[in-house]
């Protein structure tokens, strides 16, 4: 028991939690934007892979770190456009289209990687984002190491949360997005484009998902591996429901998941001899299922989620 307490009080544990949570924060904000407009984007898992691959490869080819992040975001927007066209004007099943995008984006990423680097056993490494060292802020006891000695992408993720909240709640665009996810007729009757809003939301949301993937290859690690997304996209889909489509709660959910993950790594080294390691690996997922069961009952779904809308049919 003392061990757990010690872990929970350590700076390194909380710093690790935030680091692990970063890709989830990007992903969950992206999924939230899509779903707020009424479109479920199960392409997330594949878009993560595409973002991870594109960002890393762009840096390796000399685009620079921020250039790589931009390329990753554009790749995400591209897959978002595909999903958007299939599900919004064409009104196809969002589940089927999303899973299709995941398979397509994942395979295309692996294919590109293999084609570009046919004969390597281990991928070339890039120089990833370094931890920041912000004068004064980084020296604050406890908070400094936890918050301000992270990489620039983690800072960006936290900024995105604020930005998404601001746009959704304080701008006309956000109001229109919330309206199109609740009752597309309301938007149409006021002369706005349902298709434009939804496709736009899916594209921007998908760019954020891709940034989550890019964090993996450009910040958490320094190279691209097969299978490195490892279900993070699916976790984001669950976290959005847990958060009841609220950006602040979504950030909290991502941090909680990060904390569970960081905790299990540390507990594994402490009591690993007694309990098989797989139990600890499983723990965050089990806990997220339990959290979901508790939270999802009260979740306020966007009313038009999953419902296609066609012009002139009322």
């Amino acid at each position, binding site marked *: 028991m003392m061990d757990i307490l010690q872990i929970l009080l350590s700076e390194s544990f909380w710093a690790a939690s935030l680091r692990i949570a970063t890709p989830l924060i990007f992903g969950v904000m992206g999924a939230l934007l899509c779903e707020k407009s009424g479109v479920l984007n199960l392409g997330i898992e594949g878009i993560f892979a595409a973002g991870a691959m594109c960002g890393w490869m762009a840096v390796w080819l000399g685009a620079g770190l921020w250039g790589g992040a931009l390329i990753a975001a554009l790749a995400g927007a591209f897959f978002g456009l595909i999903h958007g066209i299939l599900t919004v004007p064409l009104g196809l099943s969002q589940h089927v289209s999303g899973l299709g995008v995941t398979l397509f984006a994942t395979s295309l990423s692996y294919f590109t990687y293999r084609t570009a680097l046919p004969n390597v056993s281990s991928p070339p490494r890039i120089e990833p984002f370094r931890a920041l060292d912000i004068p004064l802020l980084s020296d604050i006891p406890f908070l400094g190491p936890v918050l301000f000695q992270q990489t620039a992408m983690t800072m960006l993720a936290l900024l995105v949360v604020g930005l998404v909240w601001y746009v959704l709640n304080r701008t006309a665009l956000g109001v229109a997005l919330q309206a199109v996810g609740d*009752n597309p007729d309301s938007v149409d009757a*006021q*002369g706005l484009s349902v298709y434009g809003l939804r496709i736009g939301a899916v594209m921007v949301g998908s760019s954020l998902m891709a940034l989550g993937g890019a964090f993996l290859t450009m910040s958490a690690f320094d190279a691209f591996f097969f299978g490195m997304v490892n279900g993070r996209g699916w976790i984001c889909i669950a976290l959005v429901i847990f958060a009841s489509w609220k950006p602040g709660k979504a950030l909290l959910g991502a941090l909680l998941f990060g904390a569970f993950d960081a905790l299990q790594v540390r507990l594994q080294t402490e009591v690993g001899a007694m309990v098989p390691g797989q139990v600890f690996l499983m723990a965050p997922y089990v806990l997220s299922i339990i959290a979901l069961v508790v939270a999802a009952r009260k979740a306020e779904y966007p009313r038009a989620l999953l419902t296609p809308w066609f012009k002139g049919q009322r």
Partner: protein
Amino acid sequence: MTESKVLSLNALSKRFGSVVANDAVSLDLHCGEVLALLGENGAGKTTLMNMLFGHYMPDGGSIDVASPDGEMQPLTLGHPQAALSAGIGMVHQHFTLAENLSALDNITLGSEPLFALRRDRAGARAKVQGIMDRTGLVAPLDTPVGKLSVGERQRVEILKALYRDARILVLDEPTAVLTPQEADTLFENIGAMTGDGLAVIFISHKLREVLAFSHRIAVLRHGTKVGEIATSDADERVIARMMVGEDTPVTQRDAMTPGAPVLTLSGINVRNPSGRDSLTDVNLTVHAHEILGIAGVSGNGQSALASVISGLRRPDSGSIHVDGDEILNPDPKTMIKAGVGRIPEDRHHDGIVGAMSVAENMVIERLDDPEVQTNGLMNRSAMAANAENLSQAYDVRGPGINARARLLSGGNIQKLILARVFEQGARLILANQPIRGLDMGAAAEVSRRLLEARAAGAGGLLISEDLDEILGLADRIMVIHDGQLTEVTSRNREDIGLKMAGEHT
């Protein structure tokens, strides 16, 4: 009321497939005027207004709208945005509100620049407040619309239009969802608005409010404008005659002596929290060799009545007897077993399972019949033989008995349902709007089969909004209004029309 024209619809036409929804309808509207657009369901009122607002593209005709300085200009058709900027506001029967947003957000939606970093909430609020003060249309601005009452939501819809400086306001059956008190308030508000020069078109089929609150009345029937009259020259009889027409196609119906009661409802009450579609102390008896017609404007309790008789809904109180036996725990299976055959109102949704084959749909109400199954296994050859026979006998045309039922046309779906109902030897046929939307041939077939079942000793309960249908088929007529049934002895269309509109003369 000034004389300046603000709107003219010129010979607008719209067809849906082979159905003519509007045939060269022309209308004028003047500044400060309230025009009532009257007509039975399906007469084409809503289609006309949807063309005005750009939801539908007309097949012919044009629309001119006055610009703010009074000059008539042609309106770009088929674009809601064009209608909005020309100053036309529309309040749909089904509200177009985002329930997760506040009233203020719903009102300003679409009239602010989308990509601005800030919104002028204070300015918007002041403008809305000004409109509320002027017109008396009061609604809480900061509560999510999902928590507002129906009357408040409607006021938000009207505020939406006025916020965009609408000079022409279209209200599609505004009082259909309101309590009488809310309706009175609405018309007071409309009075205040027209005082400011707003022109209003309201669609209705309630004669009382039309006579009390409009300046002019236009009547549509079967997609054409059949008349226009100044309200001061009109009374209920004149309008009722214009609405229902005087042509009565006569179906051959031989006189018969009613037999024993096949369906008796006594003291049936159904309460809905919303207050709509309730039933209050409903008593009725249908005898063998008799068709009882239930006339009424939709939404007055017809669907509750149909649900009770088909066992889909348990009444809060009252008793049901079928063929003399009391049904204590009505559910759909019990009612079918007791001998109730059901021709549902929404034949596509409630009448068939679209994804299943025609043959399967034909036996779907008797799946435990040994003829079609043994020990839980369906006897496919018996089902096929049954389907072939019935398709022949009832003239069900389509891609074949193994095709999915949703591929059939509306008329053929109805014939499939008829085959299923009549072949079970139902004691009571519940026919809810059996002819609506059918072409002449299929409609005649439905009528013929109903009369045939009546001759064979079944009782019929025909629920319809179409007076011609009721007068042609029913031996006795009751009118449903606001969940209550009244028997009418007269077969005079005007008398029945007045009762349908809730007048007690």
